[in-house]
């Protein structure tokens, strides 16, 4: 790696590099959905990258392509320096399935209802036989349960015997037990209520402090994304329209879609909120053609998808 420009401030190369990723779905002979259409971003070690964008913009699809639940249509995905976008060797597959983990939106449907918590959490250990004895296996699970705020007494229960927040902790324990470098959290807290969301977010932060794991945090709640993320990518119609540090995105949003997204966040202040209405963004009416734009550097880690004249216009007042 001789290109210094892709190192972060700590001099580290990216953990994950997604280059020009395309993921198309063919529905019928006449209908192909371009769910992800040329997306580029990087995630560094010990970093949280938040991915936001409207429903259907391709957030979950990106997460699933990166962890290779899908075969990418085009583009490259490099993880820990290895290309994992094409056919995977047995070695790469094993590396991918241990070093990268996913936490899902709905903990109930992602946990096997007939399995005890201990066996759910030990799943990753079992696949790779990463213990010498039964006792070591249980000890590893107990330690993990305690780390996520559950206790060893919970190990022999079934998922339906837990509350939503506790179930989400089980999913996190299952993901963490392999000590992954990257955790993809797809709307992992969206279905939980505010006080449990706060518990899970605090837990995710505490774990990152300890293990330096990175997160790809997919969510539509921008106040949580802002709270948790270091950098943010804004997705629209399968295109990454703007990316930057959270300060760059929130203090100086440049793309009209990002602006409308930020203006649409409801403020928990009724007197202001009742008077406010969100800025409407309609690509078709705006005449913006994402195909014509390219990702251009604004400053620092701030990039904007724009054509020449758009870039001039949008960065002028800034």
């Amino acid at each position, binding site marked *: 790696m001789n290109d210094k420009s892709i190192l972060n401030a700590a001099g580290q190369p990216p953990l994950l590099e997604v280059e020009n990723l395309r993921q198309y779905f063919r*529905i019928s002979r006449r*209908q192909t959905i371009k769910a992800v259409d040329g997306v580029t971003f990087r995630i560094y070690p010990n970093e949280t990258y938040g991915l*936001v*964008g*409207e*429903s*259907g*913009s391709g957030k*979950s699809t990106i997460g699933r392509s990166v962890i290779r639940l899908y075969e990418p249509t085009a583009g490259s995905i490099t993880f820990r320096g290895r290309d994992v976008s094409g056919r995977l060797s047995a070695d790469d597959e094993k590396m991918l399935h241990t070093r990268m983990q996913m936490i899902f*939106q*709905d903990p109930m449907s992602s946990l096997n209802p007939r399995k005890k918590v201990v066996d759910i959490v030990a799943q990753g250990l079992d696949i790779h036989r990463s213990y010498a004895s039964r006792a070591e296996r249980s000890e590893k699970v107990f330690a993990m349960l305690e780390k996520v705020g559950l206790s060893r007494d919970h190990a022999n229960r079934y998922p339906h015997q837990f*509350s*939503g*927040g506790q179930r989400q902790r089980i999913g996190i324990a299952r993901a963490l037990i392999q000590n992954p470098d990257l955790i993809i959290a797809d*709307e992992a807290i*969206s*279905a*939980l*209520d*505010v*006080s*449990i*969301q*706060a*518990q899970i*977010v*605090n837990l995710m*932060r505490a774990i990152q402090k300890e293990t330096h794991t990175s997160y790809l945090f997919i969510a*539509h*709640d*921008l*106040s*949580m994304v*802002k*709270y948790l993320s270091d950098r943010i990518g804004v997705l629209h119609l399968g295109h990454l329209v703007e990316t930057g540090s959270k300060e760059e995105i*929130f203090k100086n949003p440049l793309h009209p879609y990002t602006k*409308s*997204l930020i203006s*649409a*966040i*409801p*403020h*928990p*202040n*009724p*007197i*202001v*909120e*009742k*008077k406010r*209405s*969100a800025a409407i*963004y309609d690509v078709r009416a705006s005449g913006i053609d994402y195909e014509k734009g390219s990702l251009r550097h604004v400053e620092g880690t701030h990039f904007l998808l724009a054509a020449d004249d758009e870039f001039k216009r949008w960065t002028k007042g800034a």
Partner: protein
Amino acid sequence: MDDTILSIQNLAIEFQTSSGTVKAIRGVDLRLRRGETLAIVGESGSGKSVTVKAVMGILSGNGRVTSGSIEFRAAQGEAVEKLDLLNMPRKARRSAVNGKRIAMVFQDPMTSLNPVLSIGSQLTEGMRLHLKLSKMEARSRAIELLNLVGIPEPEKRIKNYPHQLSGGMRQRVVIAIALACGPDILICDEPTTALDVTIQARILELIQSLQRKMGLSVLYITHDLGVVAKVADTVAVMYAGKIVERGTVNDIFYDARHPYTWGLLSAMPDLETSGDELYTIPGTPPNMLGEIQGDAFAARNRFALNIDNRVEPPMFRVSDTHEAATWLLHENAPRLQMPPALRERIERMRKENNAS
């Protein structure tokens, strides 16, 4: 004039389970006025969904209403017809109330969509049944509705099956179905949790505009206090099967009196929140098996008084619009203040209000 459209009184609901009787709803009073939006907030398991399922008459088989009444005051031209929803024959309810006059959007869109039917046929079914529309009329209205809820290229999408849509698109289809027959009351159970903020804003603004145009009344369940601030006229805070505080949206956001409401307001990050830890309400909600002694929130409440462990607090009146069930409002209680961080946030909001 009394403009109540839905009145729930002293509602209690129990579930039989293998480990005993779950007392999920323990005496709930709610009143929805014509044209208003009432938001119900509260932690997971507090009984929000069970309450509205009782209104729809769709409690699960092991559930039973043990006391109380639910009255729907349907406008028939100038007159008002009072319907006792709990004692109405199932068939009459299906044909005259559900879907047509009271429509509901559920928490999980996948459970309310049929995976083997195209979204077009699911949208037109109710309109053909209740509104007696022809196939062509129903189809063009379906396209109009999809457009209204922000689904691009509705003519194409109408042929899709639910699994071909993203999570948020499915939820918008469900909302379109609920609006199809022009209901009097729309019950929304976490309808926008799966949606991004721009679509959410669009749906909320859509509901608000229908409200102005058609006098739609809305019962809105949500965890998102930002959404509450945007849509609600009045707010009911629910905890362990009871309403613990109710008031206008301003009463609740600027002058909350119940420590549980303080906790909910504190746990939510606003865009200014930074620092390391978000506030969380300690502990977990009580197990609803068996009797609860005293105030159900006492064990988690750092402001709890001795009496909270013994006697359940009644509703204390704060103003004509505002009441809360906490002994802190008793005249002999010590004068306690809300947590400083919350007071600071409210100060910030007041400044913002004065500036705008």
